[in-house]
C-alpha cells in the first residue's frame, strides 16, 4: 500500500502533510506524558519492530503474505506510540530504501500510521470490552481490529487514488496523475484487502495477541483505559448508534399521521396558507441561511422520495454527532486542565 511519488498530485500530498503534522505533534505530546525519559529509545525500537514485522512471512491459502502490524503495535504500545513508530518506519523506508515516495510520505502516513492503528485499536477495544486479558474474545477482537484497520487504510488509499483523475487533468481532459477513478480504484483495492491482505493482517494480529496471552499477558495491559471507562464508552456508543438507526421515525411518523410541521417551525408558504400573507420580516430573513443539510436533507432534495429522505436523515444524524463531538473535544482541550506530570525524570 506504499504510494510512490507521481501517483498523487503535490496538492494532495501537501493536504496529507497538513493533516499529519498536527497529528504527529499531538502524538508526541501524548507519548511524552506516558513514556517520559524512556521515550526516545523505546520509540525508536518500536519503530524498528514496526519495520521488521513487514518482513515476516505468513503462509496463507497456499501463498504467503506480510502484515503491516500497525494495529498490533497499537494494542501492545498504545495508539499514539503506534502512530509515531509506524511513521518513523515509513520515513526510513522512503529515505533509505526508496519504498514509497518522499512527497507521498504524508499520504502513506495518513493511511498506515494514522487511520490504520487508530481505527484498529478502537475496534479492538469496542469488541474486547471489559473481557479478561486472557480471554478468547480479546484474541478475536484483535483479529477484527487488524482486519478493519487495514481495510479502512485501503479505502483511504483508494480514495486518494480515485480523486486524482477527477481533480487533476490537463487541457485535453487526460488524467495528470493516477488515471483510475473511484469506481475502479475502490473495488481494486477493497477486493484484494477484504479477501486476502486483511485476512493475513487479522491472522497475524490475533495469533500474536494469543501468543502474549499464553506467555506474557502483562504486554496486553492497557494503562490508559480503565475497564469501567471502556464499558461506559461502549454503552454510550451503542446507545447513540441505536438512536441514529431509529431517527428516521421522525420522518415516517409525521408523514403517516399527516401531522404537519411543529408549532412555530412553519415555512413561509405554510404561514401564507394559514394567515393569508407572509410578514415582511419573515420574507426578508426567512431564507437567509440554508446550512449544509437544510431540513436534514441534501440541498434541493426536499421533495425526494421518502426512502431517499430517510438516508439523508441518517447522514444528518451522523454529521451532527461528529460535529458535536469535535466541538466538545475542542472546548475540553481549551478549557479543562489536566494534572501535570513530571516529565524530566
Amino acid at each position, binding site marked *: 500500500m506504499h504510494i510512490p*511519488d507521481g501517483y498523487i498530485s503535490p496538492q494532495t500530498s501537501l493536504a496529507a502533510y497538513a493533516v499529519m503534522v498536527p497529528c504527529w505533534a499531538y502524538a508526541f505530546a501524548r507519548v511524552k506524558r506516558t513514556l517520559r525519559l524512556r521515550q526516545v529509545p523505546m520509540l525508536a525500537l518500536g519503530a524498528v519492530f514496526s519495520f521488521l514485522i513487514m518482513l515476516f512471512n505468513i503462509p*496463507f491459502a497456499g501463498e504467503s503474505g506480510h502484515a503491516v502490524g500497525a494495529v498490533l503495535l497499537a494494542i501492545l504500545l498504545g495508539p499514539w506510540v503506534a502512530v509515531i513508530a509506524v511513521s518513523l518506519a515509513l520515513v526510513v523506508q522512503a529515505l533509505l530504501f526508496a519504498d514509497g*515516495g*518522499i512527497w507521498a510520505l504524508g499520504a502513506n502516513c495518513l493511511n498506515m500510521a494514522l487511520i490504520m492503528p487508530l481505527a484498529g485499536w478502537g475496534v479492538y477495544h469496542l469488541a474486547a470490552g471489559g473481557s479478561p486479558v486472557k480471554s478468547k474474545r480479546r484474541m478475536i477482537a484483535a483479529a477484527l481490529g487488524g482486519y478493519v484497520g487495514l481495510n479502512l487504510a485501503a479505502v483511504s488509499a483508494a480514495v486518494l487514488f480515485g480523486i486524482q483523475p477527477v481533480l487533476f487533468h*490537463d487541457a485535453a481532459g487526460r488524467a495528470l496523475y493516477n488515471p*483510475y477513478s473511484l469506481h475502479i480504484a475502490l473495488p481494486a483495492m477493497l477486493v484484494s484487502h477484504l479477501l486476502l491482505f486483511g485476512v493475513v493482517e487479522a491472522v*497475524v494480529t490475533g495469533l500474536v495477541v494469543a501468543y*502474549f496471552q499464553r506467555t506474557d499477558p502483562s504486554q496486553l495491559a492497557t494503562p490508559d483505559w480503565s475497564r469501567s471507562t471502556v464499558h461506559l464508552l461502549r454503552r454510550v456508543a451503542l446507545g447513540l448508534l441505536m438512536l441514529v438507526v431509529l431517527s428516521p421515525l421522525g420522518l415516517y411518523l409525521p408523514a403517516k399521521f399527516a401531522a404537519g410541521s411543529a408549532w412555530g417551525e412553519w415555512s413561509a408558504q405554510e404561514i401564507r396558507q394559514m394567515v393569508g400573507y407572509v410578514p415582511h420580516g419573515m420574507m426578508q430573513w426567512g431564507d437567509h441561511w440554508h446550512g449544509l443539510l437544510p431540513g436534514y436533507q441534501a440541498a434541493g432534495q426536499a421533495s425526494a422520495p421518502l426512502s431517499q429522505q430517510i438516508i439523508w436523515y441518517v447522514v444528518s444524524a451522523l454529521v451532527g454527532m461528529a460535529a458535536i463531538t469535535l466541538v466538545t473535544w475542542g472546548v475540553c482541550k481549551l478549557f479543562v486542565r489536566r494534572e501535570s506530570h513530571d516529565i*524530566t525524570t
Partner: protein
Amino acid sequence: MTSLPDWMTTPAPLVAAETPVGHQKRNGVRHALTRFMRLVSTLLPDGSLAEDTGLLQHVDARAKLLSLIALLLAVSFVQRLPLLAAAYAMCIVLALLSRFRGKHFLGIWFVVPAITLLCMLPAATNLVTPGKPVVSLSPSCYLTDNGIVVATRLVLRTAISVAIAVLLMATTRPHRLFRALRMLGVPKLCVMLLTLMTRYLVVMARVAEEIHLGKLSRSIMPGTARQERQWAAAGIGMLFQRTKIFGEAVYLAMLSRGYTGEAYLLDEPHWHWWDWLCISIAVAACTALLLFR
C-alpha cells in the same frame, strides 16, 4: 533374545517418493531469512555507498536534500513527455557521474517503474482512457493515444521520482542525511529517533535472522500451514519482547553515559562553493521545468 521390530530394520527413504529429485519445496522461513539477510547487507557499509570520488558524494547533504526534493516537486507539475524524458536522462547522467554501485540500488531503479508500467497498461486502453485507437488488442479493446500519453507520463514521473530517491540514498550516508534534516529545521527529537532507529535496525534484524535460523536449523521438514503461521506469530511476539528488553538496555546505557533528555549532534558541516552551485543548478532546473511544463 528379542528380535528388532521391522521398522528398525527396513531402511526408510530419506526423501519422500513423490518429491522430484533436485526440487526444494518453497519455504517461507527461508524466504523471510533471505529478506533479513539482504536488509542487514544493505544497511552495513560495504563500499557500494561511494564515499570517494563521485559527483554527488562531494555535495553537502543539505544542498543535496533541498535540490533533489525541489526537483521532485517540480517534476510532479510537468505534463510534457519530452521534458519528463529529459529529466530522466539528467538523472541517469547524474548517476553515471556519481559512480555509485550496488545491485540493490539498480534493482530499485528499474523494478518500481516496471511495476508501474504493468499497473498502467489497462489505463492506456479505451476501457479507462477514451481516445483514437493506436494499437488494437482485441475487437473491443485497443490502446488509445490519450491512454498512451497518460500511462507514459505516469511511468516517467515514477521513474524520475525513484531515480532521485536512489541518487539521494546511494550518495549520502544515513547519519549525514539525518544531520542535514536537523539543520534544515526538523525537530531534534525526530532526528534522534531516526538515527537510533537506523543504528538498531541492523541489530534487531540480526535478532530476527537468528530467530529464523534457529527455526530452520531445528526443522527437518516444513510444518503445516497452521503450524508455520503459529510459529511466525510466536516469532513476531518474541521479537517484540527482545525489542522491549533491548530498549531498556539502551536506555540504561544512555543514562550511564550522562543522558538527561537532551540530544547533541557533533561535527557541523560547512558550506562550500560547489554546494551553492548545486543549489543554483537545481533552482534553474526547477524553474525551467515549471516554465515549460
